């Protein structure tokens, strides 16, 4: 674990710089409950990711662009990290910064609750708090499809 200690030390410094930008708009929830009701009336995308999940390197830029495009229309993206070590998550975020909220689920309780069947997984929850769609994996070629599902959820019961 020596590597991890070194990583932690250097990342602690980095985090001081990055934290304000990355975490300003996010609720740094280290507990395993996610109060979806707090977002009633908005569309929530709950995306489970990990530093060791290669497709997450491609999903993050896309999630950022979804956030840019639709946050004003009521889209909330929550990236739930399942790394066991916070330092690993921070390392990933340094390379692939997120403009959306990040939440931490190191024991996987939230992942279990949602019934995650593969990494990464994302769940679209409609404005009424009900699960609309779930996506297993992230394929660059399916980006349009993923976006269409978000747009559909946003347009449902909008206003």
């Amino acid at each position, binding site marked *: *674990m*020596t*590597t991890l200690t*070194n990583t932690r030390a250097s990342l602690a410094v980095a985090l001081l710089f990055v934290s304000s930008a990355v975490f300003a708009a996010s609720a740094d929830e280290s507990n395993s409950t996610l109060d979806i009701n707090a977002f009633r009336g908005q569309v929530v995308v709950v995306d489970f990711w990990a*530093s*060791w*999940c*290669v*497709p997450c*390197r*491609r999903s993050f830029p896309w999630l950022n662009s979804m956030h840019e495009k639709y946050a004003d229309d009521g889209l909330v993206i929550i990236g739930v990290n399942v790394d066991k070590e916070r330092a690993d998550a921070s390392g990933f975020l340094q390379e692939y910064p997120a403009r959306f909220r990040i939440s931490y689920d190191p024991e996987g309780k939230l992942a279990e609750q949602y019934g995650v*069947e*593969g990494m990464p997984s994302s769940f679209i929850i409609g404005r009424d708090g009900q699960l609309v769609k779930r996506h*297993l*994996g992230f*394929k*660059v*070629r399916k980006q349009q499809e993923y976006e269409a599902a978000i747009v559909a959820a946003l347009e449902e019961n909008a206003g």
Partner: protein
Amino acid sequence: MSHKEKVSISAALAAATCSLLGTTFPASADAQEAGDWDFNTSILYYGENDDRVKDYSVKSIARRMFVDDRSLSLGLTVDVLTGATPNGAIRQDVPQTFTRPSGSGFYTVPAGDLPLDDTFKDTRVALTANWQQPLGETSLVDVGGSVSKEYDYLHLGVNAKIARDFNKRNTTVSAGFAYSMDDLDPVGGAPTPLTPMLDVGDTSNRTGDQDKDVLDLVVGVTQVISRNLVVQANYSYSYSDGYLTDPYKVLSLVDGTTGDTLLRSGAIPAEGGPSHQFLFESRPDDRSKHSLYTQAKYYMDGKVLDISYRYMTDDWEIDSHTLELRYRWPLAGDHYIEPHVRYYTQTEAEFWRLSLDDSQPLPEYASADYRLGDFDATTLGLKYGWKTRNDHDMSVRLEWYQQSGDVPGEQIIGNQAGRDNYPDLDAIIAQFSYRF
């Protein structure tokens, strides 16, 4: 390794294809992004004891990623071989002379020495190409081809494999095949089996080109047992058909009582010729092999234990066991050290003979090739790896490979008993790898 080393063992370049079946693009967190090229290159030195085979090799695999986990891999290997290899004849207390395989020269082996043929210095070039991509939601498919060329050998092959995940990707079932067509054009022409080695310039017992086909099939299961443990079991079947004999290897024809190699009849002509009687070897024209391979990788607090076992049995009556252990020990700063131990044992082929007894009828098949004999082999190695400042992987490894064989008691005749009959092997393997 030159083809002379391989052609006698059925699936010559199925080794290349078997390693294609075996190697998989690591689905690890170090994997790359679309548009990236990944180069994995190594230089290798393999050197045997005394004047035996030395191989200098450069191997490179270039991989380009495409969108959504698709990749193209191109491999190139160049081997430069020098050194001598046992020709199958036994030691004698007198010097022995052999006609070179080309038929255009001869070489002499001092009294008491193991007869080694140093005729060939050879260069081998091998190319592979593989395309891998996901298929549907839970499958992965890989198709490819291979070609290799050396002075007297051409290999062409195709391979394909598919893997499908089940059980939240905890279980993976895979299947693959490789088919190769090899053409052999031995220097001087392939000799008719069990005919004598003739004088320099006499190619009357030589025929022309030969070929063989090899089919390999593999099915396997990979299972994640726990967060720290993954295991795999595979069953392989290999069928070789065609010319499986080594055209350059002979057996000594010996006296049934003394065990000494019979002298040739008549005087050796001026251009040269064999001093004694040697018969070219003969192997069956097909071979079926079955293998069972199991492997486990276990992670303990940063260290990784890799243990594997393989059992092989074939219709030449060769049985083998391979047990291999690697223990990867992480050091500070992304360095690691990895000791490696491999233990291998095989029984001799049904037609393996130390020599041919002149007082007995000739068998249909016979070979004195040490690689088909009864031997144990041990490898001891150490690998050291690190990451460069650019986060590239480098490693060096040094290994010692040692083979020691046994001649079945009933095959030792007369004076052979006092001698060291089996060409034991001692080799050093040194490799440096760089991945960027």
